[in-house]
């Protein structure tokens, strides 16, 4: 079965939602996750810390260069990722739509190469 990466996208300058709203979103996302697990499509996933906590690693001929911060400086950021199994893009879009309703953000749907096996 093909694997898809669902990325939660949000503007880099977005403010954290009000506590009440955040609580509601977390509850909706939890319910979405339960539904995806229940239909047997869940592979792996979770929220990510802020991009400022990232470290970029590059190995050049054995010399490792570390950079503090994300590799891609972008106006949009990825707040979390989920890997799902779906029969085809329509099924993946169906789950992404439900996730977008829960997170209230855009969701990028991207297929893995060779069904995720290599």
């Amino acid at each position, binding site marked *: 079965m*093909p694997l898809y990466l669902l990325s939660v996208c949000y503007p880099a300058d977005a403010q954290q939602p009000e506590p009440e709203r955040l609580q509601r979103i977390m509850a909706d996302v939890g319910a979405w996750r339960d539904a995806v697990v229940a239909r047997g499509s869940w592979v792996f996933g979770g929220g990510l810390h802020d991009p400022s906590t990232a470290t970029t690693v590059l190995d050049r001929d054995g010399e490792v260069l570390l950079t503090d911060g994300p590799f891609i400086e972008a106006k949009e950021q990825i707040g979390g990722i989920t890997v799902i199994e*779906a*029969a*085809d*893009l*329509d099924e*993946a*879009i169906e789950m992404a739509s439900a996730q977008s309703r829960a997170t209230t953000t855009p969701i990028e*749907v*991207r*297929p893995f*190469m060779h069904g995720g096996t290599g």
Partner: protein
Amino acid sequence: MSGAPASVAAADVERVFRDDYGRAVATLTRLLGDLGLAEEAVQDAFAAALATWPRDGVPANPAGWIVTTARNRAIDRLRRESTRQQRHEQAWTLNAPEDAQEVGPVRDDRLRLIFTCCHPALSPAAQVALTLRMIAGLRTDQIARCFLVPETTMAQRIVRAKNKIAAAGIPYRVPRDADLPDRLRSVLSVVYLVFNEGYVASTGEALGDADLAGEAIRLGRLLVDLMPDEPEARGLLALMLLTESRRAARTDDDGALVRLPDQDRTRWDAALVAEGQEHVRWCLRRGRPGSYQVQAAIAAVHSDADTAADTDWRQVLALYDQLMSIAPSPVIALNRAVAVGEVHGPADALREVDALPLADYHLLHAVRADLLARLGRRDEARAAYDAAMALTGNAAEREFLAGRRARA
């Protein structure tokens, strides 16, 4: 037909290509599960037809011959290229005893292919290109000329779209009932986009050797044939037929634009009008109105009038009211205002036009200018024509507006 002259056989190949390319690709896509492989196989089959039909004659069932040959070529190709186990397996599934020439599945195959090509995960430009390539059977260079882009650009667009279909797993099937209305809308809008491209282009210089409006009508007929119970598919076909019926009357001998009220209605194509009106009547009986059907009904009211003065503007206005309730938009409100001007007079119409958020749309200023001229406000009318001319990118239209301005 053995011994047919080579030129006759070549013309037969060309005709079968036009009529059956999409059908063959659709069937092979089902058998192979891959659009790209299907296309290669069908192209191989047409190359084989060009080589053998002039020598052996045209087969009794040319379309069936193409599908069978394409299937055999695909098996050959897969065996030849099967470096991976997967390809071996694919070649085996092709040998399964399934008749590729059956009529029932073939019909469904084409519908599946249409929905695949018009999948909303593809950009509208990619949907249009794929549909013209896969369903209408146009060559890439023809499509490129129609859309005024280099052939390499169009080829890349098509390759990219095909890659996405394969990589992202865009399914090859008719959507579920729940998704069908949305997905059908996407298919219809692709066909209407093709039609409008052909319609606009035909007012300017001649573009390419493919007639996009004609292709769109062909696609529209195919959709009605494949989905006879979808009123909006029929509404779109009716709208295109009725619009196309006026083509000859739409420009004068010098190629200048002629407005609907000024057209010589004896130059309208009576056969297209009759066909379009028949579809409109079918839609009315069905009683499930939608945006294309109502637009077609408006076109049909105009087609009913022998002269512009005979136009039943009250009915046109009632239909625009209905259209505004189904699919409200400022552009439709602008067209409705024109009908208001005919039924209730230019002052009422001007009030409605001035309330529309379309300051950058040249037709708003053109309509406004006409209304102002009718009200005798000539300086304001001229200023509005100037605004319209500054906003249009089409030379024929600018010339037309200049003529109106001179008479205002």
